[in-house]
C-alpha cells in the first residue's frame, strides 16, 4: 500500500483506469447521490423521447412565447460557466496561492455548466437531427451575421479551453510532474478573454434584437457579466463547502473570504444596474416598457411572472446584504445560505425573468402567460442532473490526484 502511494502508476491508460476506479468507489451516501442523479437523467431522457416524437408541442411554448425554460436556463448557465474566470484570473495571472488550489474546481464547474448549455440548446431545437446544418463545410454557419453562430463558436471554444488546460495540469500531476507553465499560459490568457466573450456574445444575442425593446438595451452585456460574476462564484462556494465537509480535501478560510469579496462586489454592481434599468422603465413608462410592466406588476390581468421576479429580487437583495456584512465572521454559518439565496435569485431573474418578458407582450401586443409543461421540467431536471453528474465525476479524481501530488 505504501509502495503504491509513493510510486503510483503512470501513463495515460492507468490514468483512465484510475479515474474509473476512483469514481466507482465511495460511500453509500455518494453512491445514493449518483443513483438519484441517474434516475433524474433517465426520466429526462424519457421526457425527451416524448418531445422528440410529438414535437415541441409537448412543451407549453407557443408562437408568442417561443422560447421558454430551456433558453432561460441556457442563458443563466452561460453566466455560471463564464464565472470560472473569476478564479482563473487571480490564480494564474496574479499568482494567488489560495485560489490556485481551488481553480481546478472552478474550471470543472464551468465544464459542467457548458455541457448543460449545449444540452439546453439541443433540447430546444425543433429539428435536432438537422444540427449538422450548422457545421461549416457540410453545412452553413451564418457567420458573422448571426449572433447565434457566434454563440456556437464561443461556447464550444470555451468548453475546449476549459477541458484542455485542467486536463494538462491534472495529467501532469498524475504523472508526478510539474506542468510546464510556458505551455499552458497562452491558453489561460485566451480563456480569460474567451470567458468575457461567451457572456457578452450571449447578451448580444438578445441585445441585438430591435424587435424586442426589453432586450434591446445596451446595459444587457455588462449586467450579464456582473450577475454572472456573482452567481458563478456563489455556486463555486457552495461546491467548495460540499467538498470541504464531504472529503478530506480541506479548503482554506481565506478562499471563502476572497470568493465572498468577489461575489459582493459583483452583486452590488448588478443591483445598481438593475436599479438603473427599473428607473428607465418606470420613471416615464412608454410602450417599450410594457414588458417590464408585465414582469413586475402584470398586464391586463396576466401576472404569471410577478411572484417570481419579486421573490428573485428579495433573494438578491438579502443574499447581497448578508454577504456584504458577513455576520459571524469566524463562523461561516451564513455563507452557505447566503450563496444559495443569491444563486437562486439570479437564476430566476436571469432565466425566466429575462427571457419571457422579452417575448410578452408580442409585437402585436398580445399577452400570453407561460408556465413550463411537465416535459419541459423533466428534461430541464435531467439536464441539470447530468451537469451535476459530470462535475462530480470530474472533481472526484481531480482532488485525489491533487492531494496525492501535494504530498509528494
Amino acid at each position, binding site marked *: 500500500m505504501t509502495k503504491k502511494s509513493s510510486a503510483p502508476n503512470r501513463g495515460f491508460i492507468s490514468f483512465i483506469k484510475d479515474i474509473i476506479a476512483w469514481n466507482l468507489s465511495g460511500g453509500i451516501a455518494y453512491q445514493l447521490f449518483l443513483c438519484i442523479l441517474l434516475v433524474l437523467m433517465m426520466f429526462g431522457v424519457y421526457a425527451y423521447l416524448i418531445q422528440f416524437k410529438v414535437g*415541441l408541442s409537448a412543451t407549453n411554448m407557443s408562437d408568442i412565447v417561443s422560447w421558454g425554460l430551456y433558453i432561460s436556463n441556457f442563458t443563466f448557465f452561460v453566466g455560471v460557466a463564464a464565472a470560472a474566470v473569476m478564479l482563473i484570473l487571480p490564480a494564474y495571472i496574479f499568482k494567488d496561492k489560495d485560489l490556485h488550489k481551488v481553480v481546478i474546481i472552478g474550471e470543472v464547474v464551468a465544464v459542467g455548466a457548458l455541457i448543460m448549455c449545449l444540452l439546453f440548446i439541443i433540447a430546444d431545437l425543433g429539428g435536432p437531427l438537422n444540427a449538422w446544418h450548422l457545421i461549416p463545410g457540410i453545412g452553413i454557419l451564418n457567420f458573422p451575421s448571426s449572433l447565434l453562430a457566434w454563440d456556437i463558436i464561443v461556447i464550444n471554444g470555451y468548453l475546449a479551453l476549459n477541458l484542455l488546460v485542467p486536463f494538462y495540469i491534472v495529467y501532469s500531476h498524475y504523472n508526478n510532474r510539474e506542468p510546464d507553465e510556458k505551455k499552458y499560459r497562452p491558453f489561460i490568457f485566451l480563456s480569460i478573454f474567451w470567458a468575457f466573450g461567451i457572456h457578452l456574445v450571449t447578451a448580444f444575442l438578445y441585445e441585438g434584437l*430591435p424587435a424586442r425593446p426589453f432586450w434591446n438595451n445596451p446595459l444587457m452585456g455588462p449586467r450579464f457579466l456582473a450577475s454572472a460574476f456573482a452567481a458563478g462564484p456563489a455556486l463555486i462556494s457552495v461546491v467548495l463547502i460540499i467538498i470541504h465537509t464531504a472529503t478530506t480535501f480541506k479548503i482554506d478560510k481565506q478562499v471563502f473570504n476572497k470568493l465572498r469579496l468577489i461575489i459582493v462586489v459583483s452583486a452590488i454592481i448588478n443591483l445598481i444596474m438593475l436599479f438603473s434599468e427599473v428607473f428607465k422603465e418606470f420613471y416615464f413608462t412608454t410602450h417599450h416598457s410594457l414588458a417590464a410592466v408585465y414582469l413586475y406588476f402584470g398586464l391586463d390581468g396576466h401576472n404569471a411572472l410577478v411572484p417570481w421576479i419579486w421573490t428573485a429580487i428579495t433573494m438578491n437583495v438579502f443574499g447581497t446584504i448578508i454577504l456584504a456584512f458577513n455576520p459571524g465572521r469566524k463562523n461561516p454559518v451564513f455563507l452557505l445560505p447566503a450563496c444559495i439565496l443569491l444563486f437562486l435569485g439570479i437564476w430566476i431573474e436571469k432565466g425566466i425573468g429575462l427571457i419571457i418578458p422579452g417575448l410578452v407582450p408580442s409585437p402585436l401586443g398580445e399577452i400570453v402567460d407561460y408556465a413550463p409543461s411537465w416535459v419541459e421540467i423533466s428534461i430541464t431536471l435531467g439536464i441539470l442532473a447530468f451537469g451535476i453528474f459530470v462535475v462530480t465525476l470530474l472533481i472526484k479524481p481531480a482532488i485525489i490526484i491533487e492531494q496525492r501530488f501535494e504530498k509528494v
Partner: protein
Amino acid sequence: MKQPKNNDCQNQKENKPGRTKKCGRRDFLKGAAKVAAMGSFAMVSGCGSELLASGEKRKLQWEEFFKTNYRIMTQQEKDATIARLERLAKIKKDVNIQMSSKAPIPGVLYGYAFNVTRCEGFMECVSACVKENNLDRKSKTQYIRIFEMEPGKMAPESGNGKYFHEVPVKDHFYMGVQCYHCDNPPCVKACPTQATWKEPDGIVVVDYNWCIGCRYCMAACPYYGRRFNWHDPVVPVKEMTKKQHYLGNRMRARGQMEKCTFCVQRTREGRLPACVEACPTGSRVFGNLLDPKSEIRFVLKNKKVFRLKEELATDPKFWYFID
C-alpha cells in the same frame, strides 16, 4: 460436441433425439424465412407494393435528409429533390402534387399595399390563405391576422386580433397584418444556418428542410410574421393545394419555421396572391414595384401611405393607405 454440417432436421433427429427441440426451432425459423420471402414476393407481385414501397420510402427519406440548402443547389439537384418529394407525397398520402422550383422573374420586385378605409374585416383573405398555403388546421395557423381597430389608433397592438362577431362594426376599421417582406429583414440576419433569405424578387423565404428550428428568426421579427410548426401540421388530403412551390406552400413538418411567401407558387406564375384574389372589398393591392405602370406604383404615388414601425429601419415592402 460435433455439430452436423448438414442442418437437415430429419438427419439430426435420428442421431440425437434429445436435440429435437433445438432442431425444431431452427426448422421453424427456416420455414418462417421461406414463408416471409414467399409472402413478400406475393405481395410485391400481387396485392400491393407495400414492402417495395417502404424500401423506396426509406431510400428517398435518406436522400432527402442529406440534401443541401436550396439556395446552393444546382438545377439538377433541385429537380431531384422535387422528384423525391412528389414521390414521397404519393407513397405517404397517396396524393399527386406538382411541385415547382420556378426562379424569380428578372426585373420584378414585389410590393403590397393595404387599404385601411376599405377593409371590412370579413377575413376572406385569411381562409383563402389557409387553403392555398396548406396551413395547419389543427392549431389553426394563420399567416394573416385582421385587427379590429377603434378610431384614433393606428397600431395593431391597440386593436382586437380575436373578434368573433358580425362585421363591419360601426365606428371601427380593420387592419390586416402579415409578413411584410422587409427589404432589410432582421429574421434573415438572425438565422444561424441561412435557412431563410430574401429572394431577388424581394420575397423572404424559408428552406423548411434546412431550418433547424431554433426560432431565433421568430424572436428577431418585429411584426410577428413567422409561424412555427410545434407539431406535424394536419391538412386533409382533400383540401390540400396540389400545385406547390419548393419555397412556398409545400407541406412542412414539425420543428420547422414557416411564413407568408406572397404565394410564391402563384405570383411567379404571374397570378395574384390568394389573399388579394379573395378580398371582396378590393382592399389589397399587389404588384411589381419596378413597373411604373403597376397598380402598386399608382398607390404609392397618389395615396398617403404609411408603414408600421418605420423607426426600426426594416424597410417593409408593405404599405397601408387611406382613401
